[in-house]
């Protein structure tokens, strides 16, 4: 044991310190800033910071907000990809800032960070999510049943649960809806997220409101506006096959009507 200590050299703490510093790179974050209390125009602002490329974009935003410019405004809650607060457009793609590693973004070039598109920007990276949640509420995302309450839990087979398993993963981050070109052009469209959450109940064997939800989505601004561009599927940070879910709702509508 003592023989290992004979070698002279820096202590373990010092070695860790230098290696951590050596890991850091200089990265530029080009952030879309907007503050209605200062100007009615949105501008790009560059922040160059030293950061470990294995950190996430959210860590970089924190570092900027805490150490460089405290006026930078963005949403985040859990910071671990579950709450869906920090969806933003990073390098032109909708992603969660807390699930995007800097090393995956080619950090030698400036990394652009913008608010998600198609919704009103309130400040910097914060948008008004009300239209998004309004569409969500409109598809009635809750269990609808008839008859008396059962005295025990509502049982379901594993196969029945599997039928809508994919769409239960939605965290309502709006990455899909705000990547949809139809939604950009016309906010009246329900958007992928609302349809995914309708799908979750339409294909639930315990739910009896499927027909009502299908009727809502059969309308002018429902599933038929989907152009299958697959932007939503690419954007989803949870890997939900969003376009497939929309197509399944279309199929259910057609097979029930014909």
């Amino acid at each position: 044991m003592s023989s290992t200590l004979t070698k002279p050299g820096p202590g373990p703490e010092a070695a860790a310190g230098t290696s951590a510093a050596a890991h850091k790179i200089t990265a530029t974050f080009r952030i879309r800033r907007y503050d209605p209390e200062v100007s009615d125009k949105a501008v790009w602002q560059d922040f160059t910071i030293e950061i470990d490329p294995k950190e996430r974009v959210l860590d970089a935003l924190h570092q900027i907000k805490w150490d460089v410019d405290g006026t930078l405004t963005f949403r985040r809650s859990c910071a671990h990809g579950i709450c869906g607060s920090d969806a933003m457009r990073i390098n032109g793609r909708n992603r969660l800032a807390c699930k995007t590693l800097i090393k995956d973004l080619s950090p030698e070039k400036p990394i652009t960070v913008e608010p998600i598109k198609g919704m009103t920007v309130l400040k910097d990276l914060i948008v008004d999510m009300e239209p998004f949640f309004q569409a969500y509420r409109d598809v009635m995302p809750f269990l609808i049943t008839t008859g008396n309450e059962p005295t025990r839990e509502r049982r379901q087979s594993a196969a029945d649960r599997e039928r809508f398993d994919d769409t239960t993963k939605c965290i309502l981050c709006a990455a899909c809806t705000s990547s949809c070109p139809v939604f950009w052009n016309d906010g009246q469209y329900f958007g992928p997220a609302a349809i995914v959450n309708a799908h979750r109940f339409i294909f639930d064997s315990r739910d009896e409101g499927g027909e009502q939800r299908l009727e809502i989505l059969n309308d002018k601004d429902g599933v038929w506006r989907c152009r299958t561009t697959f932007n939503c599927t690419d954007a989803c940070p949870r890997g939900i096959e969003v376009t497939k879910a929309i197509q399944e709702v279309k199929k259910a509508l057609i097979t029930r009507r014909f």
Partner: protein
Amino acid sequence: MSTLITDDTQGFGPDNPAPRIDPPRARTRRSPRATRTNYEMYAWVFMRLSGILLVVLVLGHLLIQLVLDGGVSKVSFAFVAGRWASPFWQVWDLLMLWLAMLHGTTGLRTIINDYAQRDGTRFWLKMLLYTAAAFTIVLGTLVIFTFDPNIR
């Protein structure tokens, strides 16, 4: 290190923020209104079915007109008159005309619905589209059925 927002010529401040810029045609409390019809679904299904039929009709048409029997140089008044003497080709061309026109009209209607921002613009573009489509369909149908090869 970084460029700051310096444009405060219009005097925006905490008590006087810049006005909100809502996206065009944003969802409101009263929209979208339910129409309770299956029209959109029928339009969607029609696009798929007519598309499949048109692949056969149009490719067959192009093959006959441009490739077989000496290619495009054979197409003349006599050639068209000869084909339209048969009810089969009359029905073929009629079907192609109707399906292509309705398919294209439905597609353009979708594009207008997606891109026209003002209600008035959308309405008048669609009226123009429907008028043009109806005119072409009526004229084409008239020609197919009243075609008389004996002009002199």
